[in-house]
């Protein structure tokens, strides 16, 4: 047992306790949490900072407004409903279209049909706080449904793959792409069975994948190789992630981005408590990279410079 601990230490693997104690509590002041926990606020801040985000179609804040939902989406073919304060992808519904015959019947990313009433119930659950971190009342966001870049077509099942970049004191240190599977119900969440693939920070090419803490070579549903994919606009993605530090003020930050076919990389959300599976996906620990950043830390470096440093330092 102690030999395992020593090996993990040598690999710089970060544990949950250390993450909570030494990273989150030290680097992430509580007062900045709303900036990332409330996705509506994140969107506003990101827009102010000149970052691209998915369009917001509407916000439903009160139970009384749930009925206006139909009006809100009247003109829309596809959209996403998500709780503003949700965590781990819970409570997110992706509507990709409508039934041919019945306009009030919606098609989910899984292909299932869902009635307007059921969607309204889901929204009122969101507003009631079922998915919110604190259990308090929440807001439901209705926003643009990303049409993902074809580069991921072979390695995604339904949903939208996203890219998670860990940003330590403004420096991107590790990244992975999360690929939805049948098991994850189209959600890009590793806890729900999505595949995570590490990314070579210097080139933006994917590495091996991880599924439920196990290394995998192929996507479980499509069978395509996970490794070797070139993420488009990699430099831009790193730079945008690095900017997340200025936007949120959080020293240990997970930035989630998606690559839209037409709009390019968009900031989806940011996370003050990013998970640790990214280490498995990259086959290496965070602690060593973080230690390197501490050595070369420069408070005056711009996001672009920090992104360049990340590419230089952290080749796979």
């Amino acid at each position, binding site marked *: 047992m102690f030999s395992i601990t020593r090996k993990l230490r040598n690999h710089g693997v970060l544990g949950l306790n250390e993450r909570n104690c030494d990273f989150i509590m030290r680097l992430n002041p509580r007062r900045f949490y709303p900036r990332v926990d409330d996705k509506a606020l994140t969107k506003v801040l990101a827009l102010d900072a000149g970052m691209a985000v998915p369009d917001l179609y509407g916000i439903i804040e009160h139970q009384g407004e749930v009925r206006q939902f139909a009006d809100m989406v009247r003109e829309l073919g596809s959209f996403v409903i998500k709780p503003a304060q949700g965590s781990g992808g819970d409570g997110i519904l992706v509507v990709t279209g409508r039934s041919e015959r019945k306009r009030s019947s919606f098609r989910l990313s899984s292909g299932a049909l869902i009635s307007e009433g059921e969607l309204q119930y889901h929204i009122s659950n969101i507003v009631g706080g079922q998915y919110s971190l604190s259990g308090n009342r929440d807001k439901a966001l209705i926003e643009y449904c990303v049409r993902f870049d074809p580069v991921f077509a072979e390695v995604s099942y339904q949903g939208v793959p996203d890219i998670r970049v860990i940003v330590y004191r403004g420096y991107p240190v590790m990244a992975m792409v999360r690929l939805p599977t049948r098991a994850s119900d189209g959600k890009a969440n590793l806890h729900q069975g999505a595949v995570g693939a590490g990314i070579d920070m210097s080139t933006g090419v994917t590495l091996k994948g991880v599924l439920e*803490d196990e290394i995998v070579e192929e996507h479980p549903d499509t069978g395509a190789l996970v490794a070797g994919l070139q993420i488009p606009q990699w430099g831009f993605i790193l730079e945008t992630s690095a900017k997340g530090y200025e936007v949120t003020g959080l020293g240990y930050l997970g930035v989630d981005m998606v690559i839209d076919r037409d709009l390019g990389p968009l900031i989806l959300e940011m996370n003050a408590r990013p998970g640790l599976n990214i280490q498995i996906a990259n086959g290496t620990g965070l602690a060593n990279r973080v230690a390197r950043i501490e050595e070369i830390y420069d408070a005056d470096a711009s996001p672009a410079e920090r992104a360049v440093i990340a590419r230089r330092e952290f080749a796979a």
Partner: protein
Amino acid sequence: MKQRYVYVLAALLAVIGLSVFLYKWQVLGFPVSEDQERPVWTIESAVHFDSGPGTIKVQLHVPTLTPGFRMLNENSVSRGYGFSLNYGSGGREAQWTIRRADGDQTIYYRISVYEDEAVDQADTTPPFPPRPVINEPLNTAVDVLVSDVRDRSADTSSFTTELLRRLNDPSPDPNVELLLAGVESDADFVGIATTLLASARIPARVVHGFPLAGRQRNAALVPWLEVHNGDQWLYFNPVTGEENLPERFFVWWRGNEPLVSVEGGSNVQVDFAVQQNHLDAVAIAETQAAQRGTSAIDFSLYSLPIQTQAVYAVLLMIPIGALVMVIMRNIVGVDAFGTFMPVLIALAFRETKLFWGIILFSVLVTLGLSIRFLLERLRLLLVPRLSAVLIVVVLLMLFISLTSHRMGMETGLSVALFPMVIIAMTIERMSVVWEERGPIDAIRSGLGSLVVAVAAYVFMGMAWLEHLIFTFPELLLVVLAIVLLAGRYTGYRLTELRRFKELSAD
């Protein structure tokens, strides 16, 4: 920096907690293990006499300094008599007085003592006694004997031993024979020895007492010789001359005065009866603390009403449950619903006992969960839905109790002890996880909660631990210190060693 604060604070708390604990344990004698009982001797002296026509005044020597024993309490039973305790030349004296009394009288004085090694040399150093004035020809005999014994001894102890050897010699020399001519009792014999010692300017006195052993109807007083060597009192067997005190020798009074004196009465007789009891060590320690005027007793839980004590006996175990929770979550890394749900479930297990507790809990959660899935179809708003689940849980409890009662299994009744609000929240949380993450995650977290609850139950149910915490609540400061330290534990959780196994390869 913060790390150091935590260490300092934790160390401080642990030191405070442990030092109070050690003080109460070592000095005040609070027992660390449960049901620890100490023998307590109750010695009853009964003074019998025939009353005369006038006023009656009874004076009885009662124990003052009792090496090896500490007094628990004393009292007197004497109907109609005025009672007072005074200090006389030979120690404490109990005094009873009455204007007039008829017929045979019996007055009781009762004292309870327990062994305590610490009560030994609590006496003051006496001054050198003056040379007693002795008439001739005895005076010459004393001088010869004393100077003879002094020549053959090195110190007080050996002097005494040599003196006693000569006094007990079966074929005594003429001087000894002369001195012991008028001796009638053992006490007189020891009295002569003290006179001889006083002639040698050695403080000495007779002690009267008896060895305590089990139950004695009629304990006989044994005189013993007590000699001060300048540092401490030494005890000598007046017959053998050995320096020792019989085991559990209880000193009743000292000096040459008679045990009892009765004015206005005749046919005086004093009987001693000894009774051995066992008393809870806690009670003894409390009395002791009270006698010392220690404030520890003011903050002892044993001073609370019994019912409140029972509540605190349970409440004080919650920190232990919380500690188990901390270890299971942050060091082992078990998934569980709710922060303290398992601790509350463990509390309920205390009443239901483990086997039935697990069965009842599982049945309740399973039934609640199935009804929760039915409620899902009704599309209720969050708070009403939670309330509905709560009501269903209460109804289920009622149903389980009634059914098991019908079937003659009374254990089912204890289901009512489960924290229903917590169970309702658990069911709700579990159903959400079920929907969102799938049944495997939900069941895993549910089982995790149960495992933590069982672990907490095992520790919270340890009788010795419960006794320890209840008697020494200051140990909770140590628990707090451990929890604080765990709060800064940045090592891996046990489950993470498995989780990151892909990274632990060479």
